[in-house]
């Protein structure tokens, strides 16, 4: 079975936030505070004008890590959060009781309360809106001007993402927590 993950050529990122807007349009994320499945973390420049450390300002495109060992899934009292097909961490809104325990448990701030369903929502890797319709890219990947994201099957050794990870160094976020995150930041 496929196990989907995402590699990010994050050095390409120009913080244009096209990915953010595409995700909102693709997935109908409401334009309200706290409603976002994806964001770009900005590490602000250090130093004093005009001696600013260029390397210090970096952009970190972020979304749910679809952890292989997801704390959000473990803590869910009704199994509303579950591992879907392809190893994607999904929320079933019919089962979500909105205890918001998972929001507390996620080390990545990837979850929020969706005002429409009044349940917890997060990145789905566009599985319902795009992959289910035969697309092979996520909305955030497709729209990106500098093509930061490479989405694909980690279990397929010939997929672009597998080849990329085999040949490049990468880092992950908070992997020391044992979450086994599936976003890989290519160095």
């Amino acid at each position: 079975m496929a196990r989907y993950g995402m590699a990010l050529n994050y050095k390409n990122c120009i913080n244009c936030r096209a990915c953010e807007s595409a995700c909102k349009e693709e997935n109908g994320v409401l334009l309200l505070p706290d409603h976002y499945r994806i964001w770009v973390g900005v590490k602000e420049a250090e130093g004093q004008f005009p001696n600013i450390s260029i390397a210090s300002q970096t952009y970190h495109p972020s979304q749910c890590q679809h952890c292989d060992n997801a704390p959000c899934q473990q803590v869910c009292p009704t199994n509303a959060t579950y591992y879907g097909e392809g190893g994607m961490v999904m929320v079933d809104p019919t089962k979500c009781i909105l205890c918001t325990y998972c929001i507390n448990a996620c080390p990545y701030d990837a979850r929020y309360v969706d005002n429409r369903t009044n349940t917890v929502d997060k990145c789905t890797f566009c599985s319902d809106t795009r992959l289910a319709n035969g697309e092979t890219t996520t909305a955030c990947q497709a729209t990106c001007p500098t093509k930061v994201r490479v989405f694909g099957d980690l279990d397929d050794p010939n997929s672009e993402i597998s080849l990329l990870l085999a040949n490049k160094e990468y880092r992950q976020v908070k992997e020391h927590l044992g979450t086994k995150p599936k976003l890989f930041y290519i160095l």
Partner: protein
Amino acid sequence: MKVEISRRRFLQGSVAMSIAGGVSMSSSSMMASAATPAKKVGNEDKKIATLCEMCVNKCAAIAHVRNGVVEKLDPNPLFPKSRNMLCARGNSGIQALYDPDRLKYPLIRDGEKGSGKFKRVSWDEAYAYINEKLTKILDEEKDNRSTVAFCAGEGMAEHTFKSFFTMFGSSHFLNHASLCLATTVSGYSLTIGGYGIADLDNAKYVIMAGANRAEAIVTPDTMDMFKRTNGRGAKLITVDPRFTNTAAKSDKWLAINVGTDLAFVLALTYVVIKEERYNKAFVENYFNGFEEYKNHILNNNYTPEWAEKITGIKAKDIYEVARDFMAHAPQAIYYQGRRTTWSKNDFQLRRAQAIFSALGGGIDVKGGICFGKSLPLVEHDAVAPMYAQAKPRIEKDEAAVVGGSGSWVAFRNMVLENRSPYPIRALFNYKHNPMQNMPNNAKTAEFLKKLDLVVTIDTMPSDTVMLSDVILPECTYLERTDPVVSYGGIEPSIAQRNKAIDPMFESKPVMEIMRGLSAKLTKPLFEITKKYDEDVQSAIEDDDEETVYAEFDLTKPFAHDQAELNVNAVAKYEGAADILKEKGVFYPNMNEYFKKVGVNDYEYYPEHKRAYSVRNMKFNTPSGKIECSVPALAKKGIDAMPVWRSEYEMAIPAGKFRFITGRHAQFTQSGTSNNRLLLNLVPQNYAWINKRVAEKLGITFGDKLEVSSKIGKTTIKAYPTEKIGPDTLFFVHGFGVYSKALSLGYNNGGNDAAIIEDGIEPMHGSSCLHDTIVEIRKV
């Protein structure tokens, strides 16, 4: 794969509601259970190939339309120029389409100008009203067609509107060029024979001065550049008074004093000439007047040490950049830039940049500034009538060369100051917002009020729309098919915007508006011409009236349907019309050349088919060579070679700031000021002020500041940051809208048009956007 829940359904719901006029979402109740998954209504999903119009780039997009609702815009990978992407604004096009504040019906002013009071009328009533006013004006002005001015914002249908202008016979066409990039285009054209295309896909060394490609997206430059920065093939040197997102991606950021770029380029030039690092073969063969230029540079002693005092950039850095540039040349580019008129020396700056680039030989070669190829379309010419009474452009002598798009500021000011040799009484405006895009909006408002008739065609009630007499609602780009366009370049292609859905409300595409309006005006206006134009009178005596009228028939350019015209325009390419309709993009051999080479990447042309070098070393300049000196300009008071003049140095009094403006990637000037998705990303603009200066003044993040200049003031929140120098103040353009009809944009953030002084530079009369001193006050 299992379908979990269709979010689209909700989206559709919200779209439908905003059409109905903006219903707010009610929250759920305690017992509300989650919505049941909705099945996708698959069959009605149409995919229409369109082109984005949220900015000038026109990226290719696929509109997903379900049940007549545009649900999503996806990038269309076929277009070489947009390289399979849509930026944040491109994605937000749907919000522009379904903006509840859109102009929905024709309106006629119903109160004092500026009162914001309008009454809804039918299209015919609107045309009749224009007709009545216009015939009166033209009669009074004895058929001086130039009493009516035309202005247009950038867009694919600008051409259609311009046809109307041409048929009408006025001398006054105004557009954004004199508020934007006129100086760069002519600076490069007069020097190297064209503005050119920076081949950032292959360049190894790029100097971006004042250009901010990470935030002011230009296709394909932005996409090509940042995949190769950070030690991955291209060195990037950013020269900017601010630490921009582009600077953050650079190998070097040089914080330059505002308005001193020319001194920087002259010093770079000095180094490469003095040290003889330039491409000698190229200079020898393809430069005209190099010796003269060399002596000019050396004799004036434009040394890095000299430039350091002016620019604030260390001499050491200037040496290093100059040497590095030439070490990488000819794959080295001094990037041309856009929206470039900053100060009085701008034209000279662009000339100096072009010459400096050329010194490395990086012109018309891979990795340098290329010219590319174009795919010609079949043009159908309509003969423009001549009106004997039409007088010449009023502002033609306000600058050395006032071109076909005029000098907006000079034009406006002459009218206001009663310096116009004849009255200017009416303005036809297509999708242009001079109230926001021209410095000194107090003057623009006065100007618009002074005119007897202002007719504005637009989609949104902008500040300019609110000061108009007649408002004609255009449909948005997703509701219309526009003229097919050929995009020249290294990888040329033809692209077409196809209508995704029918126009909403009573809005119409500009083609239909022009058709209706011209039908109404053509006969009555001809009567006036007949009355005052002796040439016409004698022509009628010679021929019959009908033959003469045929020439003056305003309706001529609008007789055909746009889709039909597009088919004709591409007739010489077999199958192109159908492909354009279906796929939005066409170029010869596309089927063979276009390849997917990775999950994200496509190849458009095989390497050997790309048009890197096309000029055969004959440039489109008078001498066919790189022009170091343009003596013809000297006669008009413009330096034949770039010279640094002491008056270019602008002292900034203590406690004051030099104001600069610019862009973020989430907004397109004032056009996106009411877009709810974009405002969701960045709710408003903030004034960048140096952190240490702010601290001294007791200003912290979010404090309200009043920013004032000689000509006006605006209020904006403070953003203290070390990314700007102590004597500079910055905020992005396009905010602080005055029009209450833009419910989200109204009074949101600071308005730079209120504070920027309306000085112009001497070459084209372009407005100097960075020559304003401001002061701030905490409120």
